[in-house]
């Protein structure tokens, strides 16, 4: 049975969704979601272990051998991202029960779980598939589910946010599929590895470059690459807490994976970095994201939006590594997929607890006043995760920054080092506003006394906070996996 893990990785959450709709019981829905999430984590760990032991794993769906059939292919990069995604899922699922019970109308709760399973299946599918078109299908499965997740938010703004998210996401996916179409016309194959082989013969043809542009812009929309990030702040701010945490930790990260996959696997024969201005574009946009989005976060009044803007900035870190294009920077990029996922996941899970206890659908900064007293553990967790956003040593964020700075140094780009550390300085400013609000502004006299979030939610969020610290000290898995993946990407097909 173990050789079928690649298929089960996706099929399991995919089957869970209709089962949940069929049974239509809230309790079953939650149970199924949780079990599936944990199983997915186990599967992904097994796959990562297998890849580390014996190289890429290939699985032929329907026993049609690649490149004719759809191939599921797990290599160092996809194994790492699989673990990152399912790790987040395994924390969000146990958290979901209480949070959804409060935030979503009773008769729609099962829908929430089903959509979450679909979204998970889609995300895992994107990462695991080795087929360009199959990837598009999974991209849309996960995106459609995400739109619904966002639209289920409590306030009416959620609808508008989801609508805009849907428009931009669909344009992104359409651009992606146009790019794939052009590549298919040029190579006659949809298998990513096969495509790369055949591109060698036609590397300079204009349609290939047009395809590159379409895929870059398309995925840029999906991953909220500055300035294509317009949908993100509202979508994160108005979605239900659990959806925000899940999407923030996984959605954009998987899109980054797609970009990495295309840049370093498919377009490997194309002189992306030496002949095209890829480097300049990515470095410029990433630095802009890191600085501008962080600044906006500093002046944001709503806490969830504040951290959403911070996500835009942190995505800048990730794409920066692609632009700098060396072993260290790519390691930083890939490890940040995990590190930022864990950090933002923790933050939004904690904020969900705050919103629950405060009984608010929105969280203006003022509503955090006195949180240090009301919910000491939650507040402390927010501080730790905030420090990880800043990149203080001993937290996951530091590891990323270390590699990015090293990468910039290796290129001799001192100004970039200054930009990286400068942006984390701005991060200090916005994290600090939250900390000040929690500890230095006394709460209302009438505010409820010391009441933490429900244990299940607190435990899940707390575990994620611990992970922020854990990945700051013990980097055997995170940096080890990311460095392997980066080396794998840079080695290319040669």
């Amino acid at each position, binding site marked *: 049975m173990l050789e079928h893990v690649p298929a089960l990785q996706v099929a399991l959450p995919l089957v869970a969704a209709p089962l949940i709709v069929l049974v239509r019981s809230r309790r079953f829905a939650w149970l199924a979601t949780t079990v599936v999430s944990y199983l997915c984590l186990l599967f992904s760990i097994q796959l990562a272990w297998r890849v580390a032991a014996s190289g890429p794993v290939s699985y032929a769906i329907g026993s049609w051998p690649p490149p004719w059939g759809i191939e599921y292919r797990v290599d160092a990069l996809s194994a790492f991202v699989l673990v990152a995604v399912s790790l987040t899922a395994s924390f969000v699922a146990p958290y979901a029960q209480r949070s959804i019970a409060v935030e979503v109308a009773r008769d729609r709760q099962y829908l929430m779980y089903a959509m979450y399973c679909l979204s998970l299946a889609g995300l895992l599918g994107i990462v695991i598939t080795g087929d360009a078109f199959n990837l598009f299908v999974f991209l849309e499965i996960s995106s459609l589910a995400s739109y619904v997740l966002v639209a289920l938010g409590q306030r009416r703004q959620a609808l508008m946010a989801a609508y805009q998210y849907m428009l931009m996401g669909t344009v992104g996916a359409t651009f992606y599929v146009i790019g794939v179409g052009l590549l298919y016309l040029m190579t006659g194959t949809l298998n990513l590895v096969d495509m790369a082989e055949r591109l060698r013969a036609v590397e300079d043809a204009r349609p290939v470059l047009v395809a590159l542009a379409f895929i870059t812009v398309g995925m840029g929309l999906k991953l909220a690459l500055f300035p294509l990030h317009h949908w993100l702040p509202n979508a994160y701010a108005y979605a239900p807490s659990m959806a925000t945490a899940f999407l923030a930790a996984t959605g954009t990260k998987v899109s980054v994976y797609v970009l990495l996959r295309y840049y370093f696997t498919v377009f490997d024969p194309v002189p992306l970095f030496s002949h095209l201005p890829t480097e300049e574009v990515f470095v410029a946009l990433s630095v802009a994201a890191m600085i501008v989005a962080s600044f906006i976060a500093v002046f944001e009044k709503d806490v969830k939006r504040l951290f959403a803007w911070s996500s835009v900035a942190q995505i800048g870190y990730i794409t920066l590594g692609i632009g700098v294009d060396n072993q260290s920077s790519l390691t930083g990029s890939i490890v940040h997929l995990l590190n930022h996922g864990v950090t933002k996941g923790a933050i939004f899970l904690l904020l969900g607890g705050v919103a629950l206890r405060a009984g608010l659908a929105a969280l203006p900064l003022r509503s955090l006043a006195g949180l240090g007293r009301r919910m000491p553990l939650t507040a402390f967790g927010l501080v730790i995760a905030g420090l990880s956003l800043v990149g203080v*040593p001993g937290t996951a964020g530091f590891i990323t920054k270390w590699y990015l700075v090293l990468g910039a140094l290796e290129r001799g780009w001192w100004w970039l*080092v200054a930009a990286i550390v400068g942006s984390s300085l701005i991060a200090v400013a916005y994290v600090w506003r939250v900390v000040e609000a929690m500890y230095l502004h006394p709460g209302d006299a009438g505010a409820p006394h010391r009441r933490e979030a429900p244990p299940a939610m607190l435990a899940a969020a707390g575990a994620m906070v611990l992970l922020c610290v854990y990945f700051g000290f013990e980097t055997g898995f995170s*940096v080890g996996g990311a460095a392997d993946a980066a080396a794998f990407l840079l080695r290319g097909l040669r």
Partner: protein
Amino acid sequence: MMLAACVLIPAAVAALIAACHRRPNLREAVSLAGAALLFFTVLSFSQAVLEGARPRLLLGEMLPGLALVLELEPLGLLFALIASGLWFVSAVYSIGYMRGNHEANQTRFYVCFAAAIASAIGVALAGNLLTLYLFYEALTLVTWPLVTHHGDAEARRGGRTYLALLLATSLLFFLPAMAATWWIAGTLEFEPGGILQGKVSGTAAALLLALYAFGIGKAALMPIHRWLPAAMVAPTPVSALLHAVAVVKAGVFSIVKVVVYVFGADFGREAFAWLPWVAGFTILAASVVALRADNLKRRLAYSTVSQLSYVVLAAAILTPLSLAAAALHIVAHALGKITLFFAAGAVYTAAHKTEVSQLDGVGRRMPWTFAAFGIGALSMIGLPPAAGFVSKWVLVSGALEAGHWLALGVVVASTLLNAGYFLPIVYRAFFREASGEEHGEAPLPMVLALVATAVLTVLMFFFADLPLAFARKMLG
């Protein structure tokens, strides 16, 4: 194993204090016992370290090739001894202060206090630059709640300046400097003789040094000294232990470490040529500001800024003697300045006076306190029979040996300035007529503590060999 205990004891104390937040007596007993235990644990290493042992403990690998390491070497031991010893004294003092002034949130205060000590000890024991950086940042963060302890607008403002300057410098300069060192040398270990020897020179080396010197903001070189006066909004025990001993000494200690173990004592002088100028300027300028400050704690803070630069100056001269002077001055200044702060806190608690101009005749009402203050002031000026004399003496010898006339001139000028802003306080306190309502000494624990540190200051003058032995050992 015992090494880990040095960091774990204060950390455990912090946890225990948090656990017994409902019982103040137990809480303070834990604090005292922990401090004593820590001091003796550190002390137990001294013999071995003097004989040349370097106990080392690998905490685990944080990044490939980059481990977290604790290693005890003489300078670190000296710093750890000072930090833990004075923790005990100031724990006694804080009991009097916090209760005497009815401060709120005392548990949080003690927890953060112990956590700060844990971080400071971590800095002292750090076996490589990464470990040092880790604890250095931790120290910044855990002291922030102490600085903003009062939670009012003024505390918020002070806390902002404090955190902004310290975090900004460490993120903007220290981290890139560390990354560059790793990139150039391929290691971050502290090694006698340095790791950058022969790998970087000229302007690049000077730039790297600048990144370190300004990146380690806790050393309070001008123009990044502003956080230190800002931190004075904290309760006095915090100013005393942290902003006269643990935090600021962690800064200059880090600079000495970087100079000795990263650049190496034999590193080319050219790269260091600019540093004495900056340090000298800081010494003089801060003294001038102190001269004009009326708020007692502010005056002490600027005095600290100036005294810290003595250490930097001594390290920058880069001769064996001056490096020893740097180490000695860390100890001497710690003892003297904590005495002064203790005295300032005692005056505030007993008489609720904060300005120098209010101190007329207070010395007659609080003879013990102001006797101790006098000894502290002597130490700052560098007169016998106080510890400051010893370190200044060695520093001057070192400067003479190197023919460093700039340093010599700065020392002479600043001695005069120091005298100019400390002696009037002593004069006012004893020889002017008192006014206002009657009051006596501060609560007993406070007086005990400040007398103890004053006695230690005098003792160090008479038994200067011991710290000197450590300082010499540092250079191998």
